[in-house]
């Protein structure tokens, strides 16, 4: 129970971009549009490179539940409609959060998510998703 309670209490997720990204902030809806393939760019019109963690990452199911309210199966079913109809590919999955941080540091147009606030000054949190 304590473990469950602790997990529920700290289920925030951090939507992170490069420190030089001119986009100051984003709404949850704008982030949903990027991560769910409805939009390919930041609200200011710049192309966005969206990065994800693997679908079987221990935090992925909670992240997508917090972002969309959907289960992982629903997210996969949704993406199978988009990717196999040639509309859009899901965000590129990276092996882990360490790789996410490294890639976002190198990509001014990148956006991704972390389960902890980034400590590196070259990254900036653009939205905190609360469960």
């Amino acid at each position, binding site marked *: 129970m304590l473990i469950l309670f602790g997990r529920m209490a700290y289920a925030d997720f951090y939507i992170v971009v490069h420190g030089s990204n001119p986009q100051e902030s984003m709404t949850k809806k704008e982030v949903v549009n990027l991560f769910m393939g409805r939009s390919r760019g930041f609200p200011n019109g710049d192309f966005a490179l969206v990065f994800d963690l693997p679908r079987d990452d221990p935090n992925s199911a909670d992240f997508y539940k917090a972002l969309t309210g959907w289960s992982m199966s629903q997210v996969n079913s949704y993406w199978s409609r988009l990717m196999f109809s040639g509309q859009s*590919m899901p965000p590129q999955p990276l092996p882990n959060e360490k790789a996410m941080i490294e890639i976002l540091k190198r990509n001014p147009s990148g956006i991704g998510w972390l389960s902890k606030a980034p400590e590196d000054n070259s990254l900036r949190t653009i939205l905190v998703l609360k469960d």
Partner: protein
Amino acid sequence: MFRIKFCTGLVLHTLCLVALIFQGGTLFAQTLDGSGSALRISGFGTLGLTSTDAPDGWGFRRDISQPSNDGGLRGDIDSRLGLQFNYAPTAQFELVGQFVLKRRSSYTPASDAIEWAFAAYRPLPDLTMRVGRVNIDAFLAADYRNVGFAYSFVRPPVEFYGSLPHYLDGIDINKDMQFDDSFWRFKAYAGRSHSGDLAFDGRTTIKPVYGLTVSRESNGLTVRLGLAYAGLASNPTILTPLLEGLDSMASVPIPEVVSQVENFQSRLDNTDSHGIYHSFAMNYDLLDWLWTFEVTKVTGHPTTRFTAGYAGIGKRIGSVTLLAGYSRISTPKLPVSAPDWVTPLTPILGEAGAFQAQAIASASALAVNNSGANQHSISLGARWDFRHNMALKVQWDQVSVDEYGARLWANGTLEPTNADVYSVLVDFVF
């Protein structure tokens, strides 16, 4: 007792490929230096068994491009494997190829295995132009009807999707717009396609094809309108001798017979004609409920005319979704009867000639009467997402076929009948 008629080759090949895929882990391929993937390989598939309880010889099909079969317990109605390659060297440019392996008719050219093959260019994040083999995006599930994991029922409703053309060789342009809570998509397309019943040599060329689709999505509710024009450029090869026979009858000096010949020609000869597809769809996916509704009316040449629709409802309980649906198709009223050409033509053509003419009249009436698709079905099913990328589905369809309405079936006859179709399958994506 059921007869087991697996398409063993397809099922075994599919199993081997799936085993390799899961053994080898992910097929996501190479990654460029920190800027995302250049080449990604992904896929989907279905392993399915279908048992049909119908009159002897009647073969259930998920669409009329499937080859003939004579019913029973089969593994080749829904089983298929798809592989997709996406190569995106930049955010603006992408190459996509998708290949689908399944049992196909001997009248199908090998190139039909290519479901998608296009180059996409995105000058702006919300504007996409695609050239190559895309899809006729006129209907809700038109783009992903092969991808079982993408929808809840075991297959898109046969009454609705069973006779619609698939791919489009041409171009499409897609524009996305967002207004507050709603997400709009406008798509225009043009090109050519093929359609027809491939239980026999019924393939026809459709050109030009052009259309518009508008969809709006907001808070789980998707509403979609479509309008498409399909020019009919050729007749099925199997009808060529009959149409030549009717041509030869058009010059007999009896106006009543000529009028009847012209009536048959207008119902059987596709050339220089067209069909216009009007469609409306709604899909509501909120919390644990799914609602879907779609209707289409096709006007134009008699061979293209039909009205079809379906409604479905689903309730999610954990990883299980319970489903119920109803779908229907109807085509113009039948039957037509074979006119008597022996009596008026015997004095002119002689007995032998008049009997040959009568054979053309009878064959023409039969061809028209076989073109009807009038049936409805009730479906009950369940989907269990037992892994995040795999789902087990079971479904029972009770199909009622009206008199002169069995066009969607292989080896159907003109009599009305009822049939039960039981399906068990596993859908997966990787």
